[in-house]
């Protein structure tokens, strides 16, 4: 599905990583591991086409990604990074409406996902009053209602409690079962089909 060959990235004079090759097929998960500052986030942003320039080739379903077909590829991605894209002044129900308007997904579907993540009883709570784990859950609930072929998640387990991690594992398993793919940066042990070390 997504294949990278000899990918190298430099920030200024420092080389973050060089000659990385990987491939993720349908139903596969790729775990990106490495120490703090090794370039995991940069690597993921590079995969979604938000970091340039880099050396090497990325191809999606056999076709090299170019400026022309990049936006088409990006439309099949779900990216949850360190910025969780939650409005701090909003109540959870306001955020749900913002998502509904932005993605055109039904309110019922989003609320159903919130129920899975244990947030349905907090709809009238302000996002700035939520704990770090709860905001992470809220942001990760996108996995349940935004149907995308490839998920790219940046340290999704960070800040989650055991229940949150279980819900996330179930969501990941469901995605792989459907024939989707997952690339996630993580420090934890996950049962990914493939691993890459930076």
């Amino acid at each position, binding site marked *: 599905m997504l294949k990278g060959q000899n990918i190298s990235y430099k920030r200024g004079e420092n080389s973050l990583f060089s000659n990385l090759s990987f491939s993720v097929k349908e139903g596969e998960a790729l775990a990106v591991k490495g120490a703090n500052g090794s370039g995991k986030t940069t690597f993921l942003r590079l995969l*979604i*086409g*938000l*970091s*340039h320039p880099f050396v090497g080739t990325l191809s*999606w*379903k*056999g*076709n090299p990604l170019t400026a*022309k*077909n990049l*936006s*088409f*590829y*990006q*439309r*099949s*991605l779900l*990216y949850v*990074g360190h*910025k*969780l*894209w*939650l*409005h*701090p*002044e*909003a109540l959870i129900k*306001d955020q749900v*409406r*913002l998502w*509904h*308007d*932005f*993605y*055109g997904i039904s309110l019922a579907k989003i609320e159903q996902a919130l129920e899975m993540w244990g947030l349905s009883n907090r709809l009238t709570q302000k996002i700035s009053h939520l704990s770090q784990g709860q905001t992470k859950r809220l942001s990760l609930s996108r996995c349940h209602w935004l*149907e*995308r*072929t490839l998920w790219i998640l940046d340290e999704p387990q960070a800040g989650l409690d055991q229940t949150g991690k279980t819900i996330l594992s179930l969501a990941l398993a469901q995605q792989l079962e*459907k*024939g*989707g793919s997952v690339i996630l940066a993580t420090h934890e042990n996950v049962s990914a089909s493939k691993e890459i070390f930076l």
Partner: protein
Amino acid sequence: MFQHLKRFFYDVPNKLEDIWIAPLSAGGVIARNFAPKPFRHRVSSSTMSGYRHNLLRREIRNLYLYQGTLLATLSFFALALFCMALGLGPEEKILRQSAPAILWVLAILTTLFSVPPLLKQEAHEGLLDEILLHPLLPAFHILSKIEAICLLLGLPLILLGVLMSLLFAMPLEDVMMVSSTLLVGFPGLSALGILGGILTLHARGGGLLIALLILPFTLPLLLFSLSVMEMTRLGLDSFAPFCLLISTSLFLVILSIGIGSWALRCSGEG
């Protein structure tokens, strides 16, 4: 009439989907290979039409959540006008003559220094990544933001200007004229505010940069609107400068959308 309008707004922009897909389809293989069966990431015409309408609603909702900032901005505008009126003294002729310029300059400053921080806040929350990964082009997002700012900041600002013009002893005719120039020029102003925000997203001391980069672009708006006022005051036909004001405002909207889309993609990098 309504049916025609409805068809225009619903059908014409749907053609945009063909524009997106066309270059890929022309290549033949790519478009087919990119469409996975069990997922629905291809944007159908109806979904896209829905996206466009929803996007404006999203921007209005989002901007409304910043109501505190908007109120502070409007308060600044009113207070500055009040101070100006006090500072100019009781001479009615001076007040009347200087009012349009003061209203316009303050509208420019208020917009250019209040809109970019809102955008920065959103970028800090991660909006830019989402815009770049959204099925609609960034241009649609910028357009929706311009529309939302016109509705939630522009209209109240103009109404406030009308009210505050009482302090400047302006005749009703002048008040109507200056309000109409503001109404016509505000889309251009808000577009420049958005553009300033995008261009200075990652810059420290963005306020000064905005002044250097964007303020010169507001000069045509200011000059044409003041020409309208001056020609009206002299009893001449102000149609020509009014048309120039409209076209300048539209040009600035288009320019901001074009440059802003490109700059958004660049600012997402790195």
